[in-house]
């Protein structure tokens, strides 16, 4: 893995007062994103607006496509032409992108998609928050595949985790999602952008061997194949069909097994390298509150109250939601009385916690249908209930 410093041209070093949407754009620019294709959709539009304003003085292209189907197709094309690429969207646009998210997985193409989640289903709540696209990020395209999804809890993390998302996308040749939400997207806070030389970027795993020996989908030791780009004289082929190491379609169960298993293993077997969690006061905890994104901040309010009431509560924040930290949750399930899991949906990522708990411990979900963040008291009551 080759690491390089960020290009200072894209890095707006300094302290800023920014909302999450603008920070996503700055994160992308700092990460070296020089191609952005998007379509306006509330509450994510500000990211596209900022990119369109900033990119002409940085060097790169912004294009507003005719729809989200076009945005993501353009992204995959641009990535294969060698650029770092990103787009931003929200629920309905995310739904439209699903088919080509599968194509990006199949073609093993690094792309970054930020989803500023709003309440759904359908048009739902364009201007109000939700965390209801978490399972869609994981399973939304047809077929079996694995992706990476990160969940920032602040405008600062919208910046930080967008850079991280680019690094992971490039490292694993996989679509990587920044799953933020309307609340963070539209919330202004202090965002510190470090100097370019302090931002470490992962360079794409370019192939450097002899041309005639190049195989686009031959896994390396870390399971990630080397990449090349269009125009370099390899005369390669790639397809959305099930394909062999040459990138040629092979339509049978044997090739499917190798191809799909590879797509899944590439992420799952590298899960330990990918997953980031933030744990606090876990060691003596009887109850662990699991959360991600904006909800993890609200949850701390409840946790503070519970601690005052004498309950031993720890917190676990999923900075990486996908791949899911199975191992860690299984380990913790054996030690504690209950997990409490608030999320702004009717029960999505909590299903993973239930699966990993295997009946070893209680899992109490604190649902919220979207439109606002939790009332901390609802989480507190769940903790109290769990401690009984």
């Amino acid at each position, binding site marked *: 893995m080759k690491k390089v410093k960020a290009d200072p041209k894209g890095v707006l070093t300094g*302290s*800023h*007062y920014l909302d999450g949407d603008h920070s996503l754009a700055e994160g992308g620019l700092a990460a070296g994103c020089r191609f952005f294709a998007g379509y306006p959709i*509330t*509450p994510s539009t500000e990211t596209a607006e900022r990119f369109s304003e900033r990119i002409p003085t940085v060097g790169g292209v912004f294009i507003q496509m005719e729809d989200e189907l076009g945005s993501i197709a353009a992204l995959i094309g641009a990535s294969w032409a060698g650029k770092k690429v990103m787009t931003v969207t929200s629920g309905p646009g995310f739904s439209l992108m699903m088919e080509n998210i599968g194509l990006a997985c199949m073609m093993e193409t690094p792309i970054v998609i930020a989803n500023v989640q709003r309440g759904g289903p359908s048009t739902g709540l*364009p*201007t*109000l928050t939700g965390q209801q696209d978490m399972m869609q990020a994981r399973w939304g395209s047809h077929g079996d595949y694995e992706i990476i999804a990160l969940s920032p809890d602040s405008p600062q993390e919208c910046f930080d985790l967008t850079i991280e998302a680019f690094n992971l996308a490039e490292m694993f040749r996989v679509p990587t999602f920044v799953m933020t939400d*309307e*609340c963070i997207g*539209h*919330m*202004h*806070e*202090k965002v510190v952008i470090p100097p370019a030389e302090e931002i470490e970027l992962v360079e794409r795993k370019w192939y450097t061997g002899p041309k005639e020996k190049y195989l686009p989908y031959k896994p390396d030791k870390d399971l990630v194949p080397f990449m090349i780009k269009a125009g370099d004289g390899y005369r390669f082929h790639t397809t959305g069909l099930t394909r062999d190491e040459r990138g040629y379609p092979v339509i049978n169960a044997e090739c499917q097994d190798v191809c799909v298993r590879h797509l899944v293993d590439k992420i799952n077997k590298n899960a330990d390298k990918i997953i980031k969690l933030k744990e606090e006061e876990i060691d003596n905890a009887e109850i662990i509150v699991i959360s991600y994104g*904006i909800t993890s*901040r*609200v949850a*701390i*309010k409840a946790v503070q109250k519970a601690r005052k009431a004498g309950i031993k509560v720890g917190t676990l924040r999923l900075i990486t939601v996908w791949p899911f930290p199975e191992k860690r949750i299984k380990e913790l399930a054996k030690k504690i009385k209950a997990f409490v899991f608030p999320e702004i949906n009717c029960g999505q990522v909590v299903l993973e916690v239930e699966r990993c708990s295997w009946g070893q411990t209680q899992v109490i979900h604190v649902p919220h249908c979207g439109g*606002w*963040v939790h009332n*901390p008291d609802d989480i507190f009551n769940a903790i109290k209930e769990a401690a009984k």
Partner: protein
Amino acid sequence: MTEIRFSGFGGQGIIRCGLIAGKALALFDNKHSTMTQSFGPEARGSACSSQLVVSDDRVLYPYITIPEILISMSQEAYDKYETELRNDGILIIDKDLVKPKPLRGKIKMYAIPSTRFAEELGNRIFANLVMMGFFTAITKIVSPEAMKKALPGLVPDRFLDLNIKAFDMGYDYGEKILKEKKQRKT
């Protein structure tokens, strides 16, 4: 922790007020501040608002719940938001645009003809900065230096001086009112 709501009607620069104060606090006064605003159809009507949560520690819950400071620059905004103000909160209004009800609880009210002052400066678009100066003097939540430092980037460069002038006008008026109140007490 302090929760503040800036309110008025669209076009008065109410969102800008939240941004200026939030930026001043977070970047130049060493505080944590989280600014949110209403979006969408509900934000288009006549009552417009931005909210600020200020704290020495990280802001966890991003929205205001029971604000202790309410700034109202229109009657409709006042009518809509006055009821949520804390019983011992501070109410700041534009004297000419808001007719307040009798004060409840221990709420303290401060009034300024911010729009009229702005007109004296040549344009009523500076009313929000007059109000910001007044708010800074009355509440002492944020320093006037930080507020002024926060302006570049949030007001057009060519109007920076006038905005500072407007701010000072409101700030001085606020100091004057505080002094008068003190004198009346003694």
